[in-house]
């Protein structure tokens, strides 16, 4: 087993955030990430298709974070963007949206599920998430930028979701949700923060390396891919 590869799957570049994709990519690379997904909010997309920076030894994934209050419109947005995106994130925040996102197997990650007085998940939604393979995103930016009462709320929501995720075997994704390069943190620091916030060491490691890899493997099938569970293997793959 080699060194784990780290990915940050929710980074917002211009015009959604302050920094350009180029800046974010070079800093993430400097921090030791193997790849990031540029996932702008769907209501703040650039006018034309952004050109992803090409850097050797570093992957930049196409992503999107869908913001939509209406569940049926959300489903149609998912259908519209699914084929062109490597990572599809839904910005949660109400019971209807969370439910719609977790019950749609084409969604990869649900971010910010918390609303009002709820952590955003319950046993029904957690089961749906596990069945449909939707990961719950743990975003660091709100945790970093708040203090006192607000951070305490965020942490207790996080712990409630963590308990449910452990019980129903829901995967977690650790991401920075950065809107500028000053919100990015290096993988080691992300892991340390996650552990302080209640994750176990192996859970945190999985959330920042293995789960993102799985999401990419699912959305970028290999050349011999026929359909789910069926793949044409050739040559050395057969062994």
């Amino acid at each position: 087993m080699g060194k784990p590869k780290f990915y940050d799957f929710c980074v917002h570049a211009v015009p959604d955030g302050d920094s350009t994709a180029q800046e974010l990519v070079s800093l993430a690379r400097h921090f030791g990430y193997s790849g990031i997904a540029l996932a702008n909010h769907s209501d703040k997309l650039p006018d034309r298709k952004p050109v992803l920076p090409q850097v050797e030894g570093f992957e930049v994934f196409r992503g999107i974070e869908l913001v939509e209050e209406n569940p049926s419109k959300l489903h149609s947005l998912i259908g519209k963007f699914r084929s062109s995106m490597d990572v599809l994130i839904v910005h949660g925040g109400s019971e209807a949206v969370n439910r719609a996102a977790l019950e749609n197997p084409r969604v990869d990650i649900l971010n910010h599920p918390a609303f009002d007085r709820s952590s955003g998940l319950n046993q029904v939604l957690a089961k749906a998430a596990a069945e449909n393979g939707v990961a719950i995103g743990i975003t660091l930016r709100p945790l970093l930028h708040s203090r006192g009462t607000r951070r305490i709320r965020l942490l207790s929501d996080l712990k409630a979701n963590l308990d449910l995720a452990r019980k129903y075997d829901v995967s977690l994704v650790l991401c920075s949700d950065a809107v500028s390069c000053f919100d990015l943190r290096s993988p080691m620091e992300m892991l340390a923060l996650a552990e302080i916030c209640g994750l176990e060491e192996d859970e945190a490691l999985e959330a920042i390396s293995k789960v993102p890899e799985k999401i990419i493997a699912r959305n970028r099938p290999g050349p011999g891919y026929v359909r789910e569970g069926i793949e044409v293997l050739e040559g050395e793959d057969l062994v």
Partner: protein
Amino acid sequence: MKRLLPSLRAKKRYLAFELISEEPAGRGDIVKEVISSASSLLGDVTTSDCDIKVLGFEAGKGIIQCSHTRVKETRAAMAALTRINGKRATLHVLGASGTVKRATEKFLQDYTVFEPEVQEKKDSRQVPGKVN
């Protein structure tokens, strides 16, 4: 007062770090912000266990001392730092070591602090002063 025996002294780790910020900052600012971020994130009790001290800081890089059992907490507290003097900043831990000498040799010598503009010959669309 008689100095503690070496075997009785608390064991420490030294974290080499670099500062990535909008504006340059001094050692005093970093001390203040790291301690305040630690006490907010971990609470005063755990922070006192961490034994955080900023040993030296110049030219954007420096060394922070912490208890050898509390490296994780210290890293988290450093990561939770978002602003220095109201300007956006982050501390990037380059590595941890058991002695100041080794930390300096291994991580700080010949290390140039990250500057995005230098690495990439970039377009002029960039807002000036965004990244130092």
